[in-house]
């Protein structure tokens, strides 16, 4: 079999045909009374709208090439990811969205710079064609990790408050008392990426690699990129989780080594 040099461009009507598959899902929902058809329709509409917007936005950034367009897009990505990272947790701490934003910016920028500057060596390192897709992958995974990490940390500090305060009451420093819950939280945030590194290529073919192969890249080259991306995601996720965990720790333990459990609130806006 010959490899096509490039992917076949899809016409809009061709994409529309793929919508038939979503329609099939909707029919199943109606027949089995799953009551998912409305959600499915909204989700499908959002997929089209959001991707169309990002397609035009990226096209604008890549082609128009005003330098200031890059920080704008990157900032929006960080802000949306920061919000998404904390939106679903069942407990919250004031200022948590800002903390998630900071954790994502720090972990995202460090890993992206390492990859584009030191690994790929693209000039300049913030060339949007590399920066934005890679950052998107780092953030998408990083926010999932941070979200799990925050959930776990707030849950264990609430539910295992007795243990933490018992350790404090016997002379543990705040760090000694918090280390267990913090480590559990970071571990929890890291599990998804470790799991996907375990099965990548065996059970799943990552979207990026699939895309490159369809676009005509020879598989071994696509695999190299994918390995780099997996490592980048692992780095970004662990760094993001640790930073987030540490910032929450600083917020919930004061200099008097007291646990400020009343700073943890139940999430009210469901």
């Amino acid at each position, binding site marked *: 079999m010959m490899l096509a040099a490039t992917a076949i461009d899809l016409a809009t009507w061709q994409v529309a045909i793929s919508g038939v598959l979503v329609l099939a899902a909707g029919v199943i929902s109606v027949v089995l009374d799953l009551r998912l058809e409305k959600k499915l329709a909204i989700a499908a509409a959002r997929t089209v709208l959001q991707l169309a917007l990002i397609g035009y936005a990226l096209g604008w950034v890549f082609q128009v090439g005003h330098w200031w367009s890059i920080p704008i897009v990157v900032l929006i990505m960080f802000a949306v990811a920061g919000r998404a990272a904390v939106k679903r947790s069942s407990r919250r701490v004031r200022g948590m969205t800002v903390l998630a934003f900071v954790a994502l910016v720090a972990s995202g920028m460090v890993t992206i710079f390492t990859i584009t500057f030191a690994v790929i060596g693209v000039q300049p390192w913030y060339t949007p064609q590399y920066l934005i897709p890679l950052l998107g992958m780092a953030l998408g995974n990083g926010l999932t990790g941070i979200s799990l990490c925050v959930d776990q940390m707030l849950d264990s500090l609430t539910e295992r408050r*007795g*243990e933490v305060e018992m*350790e404090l009451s016997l002379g*543990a420093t705040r760090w*000694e008392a918090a280390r267990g819950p913090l480590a559990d939280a970071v571990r929890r945030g890291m599990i998804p990426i470790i799991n996907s590194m375990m099965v990548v290529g065996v059970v799943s073919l990552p979207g990026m690699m699939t895309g490159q192969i369809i676009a005509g890249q020879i598989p071994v080259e696509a695999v190299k990129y994918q390995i780099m991306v997996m490592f980048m995601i692992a780095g970004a996720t662990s760094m993001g989780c640790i930073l987030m965990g540490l910032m929450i720790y600083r917020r919930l333990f004061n200099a008097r080594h007291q646990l400020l459990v009343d700073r943890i609130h139940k999430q009210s806006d469901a």
Partner: protein
Amino acid sequence: MILCAGAATGKRRVAAETCFSATAGQRTAKIECHAIGKGTHLRERDDNSNGPSLALVGLGVASNGAELLGGIDLQLRSDEMVAVVGPSGCGKTTLLRTINALIEPSAGEVRLGGQLPGEVGYPRWRRRIAMLEQQPTLLDTSVEANLRRPFDYETADRDYPADEAAELLEELNVGRRRLDQAARSLSVGQRQRLCLIRALLIRPDVLLLDEPTSALDPESLDAVEKRVVHEVRQRGLAALVVTHDRGQIERLCDRHLDLEPHLVEGAADHMDGRDRGQGEA
């Protein structure tokens, strides 16, 4: 110290509270401590035992602007045991947590040997004023790992005393062969004793006990009381114990501090003149 486990002792608890409230008419507006029975002349006192004493000065605790405790004054010498009594919800546990510095007082101060927690350093303060919570809280590890844990802390000033731990396990009916057992598989009473052992091993100057014998059978109760009395009388430990058990107060304590919700009051000294008899080790 303490008791009130099981149905039989439940009755005694009610009796004790009834007794306290019957004295309400004689309360004044100030919390006072009341000497119980025996004069200090009956106590064998080691002249070297006057280590750092605990002082509560005008201590108050508030939560969200509401005063939970106020105007508490108490001097606790080493080798002295004082009971904290009062109806449920009057802030006994909050008082212990404040002295342990897990909670910041809203008024007044707590000093140990003249020093504030900030001067001693909070973790070191808590190691010197160890607290035994009402719920026996153990880590999900073995009995031995639980006992060793406080010796991993930065504030540890000595190595884990394995021999002493084994002796205490024996003496308090937990059993030394249980060292490998999962701590959480023990009965509530055993867990209470394990927590006591863990606190005693770090050799605090002051021990705060929150109903430490509430789940114990009479035999274990006896062993625990004997050990605590020994620590107080022979080693100069100062102990502040929350208990509902009047018998225990009489057996063990020199004085009692009565707490009332929100109000500062001193209950009548209904125990005055009682013989504290078997309290001596």
